[in-house]
């Protein structure tokens, strides 16, 4: 078949035809390999990811991801604006978990400037509530779109039904539904609206049984298990080697969660478990494990939010926004700080030079690091498995390309 786009790929990236040392399939008939361009516009790539597949019939011999279609110079912009002005840009990195991105950058800057000691307890708890709510919202999208990748359309709508309520909660607090900029340097922009605590706990009561519904609908569905178990297995060592973090790492059976092993934001005051993949349906570290870890994390987040709402009780009246947040000057020093995002560890490297504007801002997006394992996992799998594997890594291209 003649397709211009792939011809261009061949010319500009000659290394796509690198010989594989891995398993060569024995053929009795000589077959011709075909290069297929999956993306940048493809329903299974969750945005503008482009994967060049080298296929033999339905078998995928090699999958090379090409990224950069959504590159928006976020790091360059970081060198031209003050930290509090940079908060909205962090929203647009992982646009499904804007609160967590805000939190990551705010914590990094606060740690660099020593402001972190002066954040009020109330602001910290509000931050935790919103970060965890956003974790639920983000995992709901991951759950729904993973269903779509496997071909089940209904779970997507179920997930969005619940996510809608979370977005309503966000909207009541900060007015935005996707790019919040709510958590900022020095606290949060505004105190909670009236009755937020009651409505939030009602939502949690409503949401908890829904997780069981998801499990009945999708997690234990026979076809779903057949499609995801034993597919795209990543062992714990491989996961660490490739720098995978978050549910992808935990799905490989590594009990590692920054909220536990190096608590930020007073997460150490909270009681919760860290679910890891146990290979219930197949091998440890397969797609199903990565998927089920997200489902279980939603339950844990509910637990955390309940405790945080409880802790919020005695803190009325505390100032939720520190006055120095907007006027802060960065010292001549640098920091690298990571928090646990829904997709993994989001790290910010911030370097100051005594001015109000940082000299260098670098974001380490978890999706970026998780995606680099594609090349390794998508070898000698079927075409349909590529969709399953990419979906189980749950990448957000806004964060990969920044």
């Amino acid at each position, binding site marked *: *078949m*003649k397709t211009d786009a792939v011809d261009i790929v061949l010319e500009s990236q000659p290394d796509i035809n690198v010989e594989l040392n891995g398993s060569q399939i*024995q*053929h*009795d008939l000589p077959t*011709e390999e*075909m290069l297929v361009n999956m993306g940048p516009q493809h329903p299974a790539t969750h945005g503008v990811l482009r994967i060049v597949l080298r296929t033999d019939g339905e078998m995928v011999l090699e999958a090379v991801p090409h990224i950069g279609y959504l590159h928006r110079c976020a790091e360059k912009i970081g060198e031209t604006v003050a930290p509090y002005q940079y908060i909205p840009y962090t929203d647009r990195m992982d646009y499904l978990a804007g609160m967590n991105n805000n939190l990551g950058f705010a914590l990094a800057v606060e740690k660099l400037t020593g402001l972190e000691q002066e954040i009020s307890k109330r602001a910290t708890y509000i931050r935790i509530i919103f970060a965890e709510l956003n974790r639920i919202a983000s995992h709901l999208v991951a759950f729904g779109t993973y269903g779509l990748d496997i071909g089940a359309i209904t779970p997507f709508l179920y997930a969005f039904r619940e996510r809608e309520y979370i977005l309503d909660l966000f909207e009541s607090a900060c007015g935005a539904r996707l790019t919040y900029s709510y958590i900022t340097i020095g606290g949060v922009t505004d105190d909670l609206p009236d009755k937020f605590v009651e409505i939030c706990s009602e939502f949690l009561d409503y949401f908890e049984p829904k997780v069981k519904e998801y499990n009945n609908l999708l997690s234990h569905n026979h076809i779903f298990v057949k499609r995801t178990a034993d597919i795209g297995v990543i062992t714990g060592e491989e996961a660490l080697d490739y720098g995978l973090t978050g549910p992808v790492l935990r799905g490989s059976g590594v009990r590692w969660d920054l909220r536990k092993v190096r608590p930020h934001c007073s997460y150490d005051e909270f009681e919760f478990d860290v679910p890891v993949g146990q290979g219930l349906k197949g091998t440890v570290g397969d797609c199903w494990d990565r998927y089920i870890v997200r489902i279980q994390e939603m339950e844990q987040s509910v637990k955390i939010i309940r405790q945080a709402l409880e802790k919020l009780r005695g803190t009325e009246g505390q100032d939720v926004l520190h006055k120095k947040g907007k006027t802060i000057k960065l010292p001549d020093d640098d920091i690298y700080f990571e928090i646990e995002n829904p997709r993994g560890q989001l790290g910010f490297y911030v370097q100051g030079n005594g001015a109000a504007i940082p000299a260098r801002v670098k974001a380490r997006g978890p999706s970026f690091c998780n995606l680099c394992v594609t090349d390794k996992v998508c070898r000698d799998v079927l075409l349909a498995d590529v969709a399953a594997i990419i979906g189980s890594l749950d990448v957000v291209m806004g964060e990969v390309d920044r």
Partner: protein
Amino acid sequence: MDDLAFYIFAAVSLLSAIGIVASSNIVRSAVCLLGTLGGVACLYFVLDANLLAVIQLIVYAGGTLVLMVFGIMLTSKSPWVGFRATRGQVAGAVLVAILMAVGISTLVLTAEWSQSANAPLKTSPSVAEVGEMLLTDYLVPFEVASVLLLVVMIGAAYLARTEK
């Protein structure tokens, strides 16, 4: 009315047959083949030979399908890649065509058409009759054909098996 139908379907068959030979693209040839076989099936319908017509459709549609799949798999470059016959192939084809033409014309010329034209045709046999005949009078040819197909299936499975 039947005459009209006959001419229409005969024209379809013949034109598609010309298309098979004239087209240099294997998939287009296969589609033309489908047209020919479909036209012949419709002729059978016109002649009230329903069973034959339906069998023609179900068997040859499947056959054309497989042919098409092979055509796509073996020439998977573009719809515009054609093939050209070598001189030897043309000579062979002409020879076969002449032989067939001679054979068929001999058959047509020597057949006793007048008999069937005058005597009213027996109403077309029902499926039940055909089935009974297959399992009684023609049992041996039927079984031989089945065994042949079985051998073909085993052979195909053997050929398609991956060498380990």
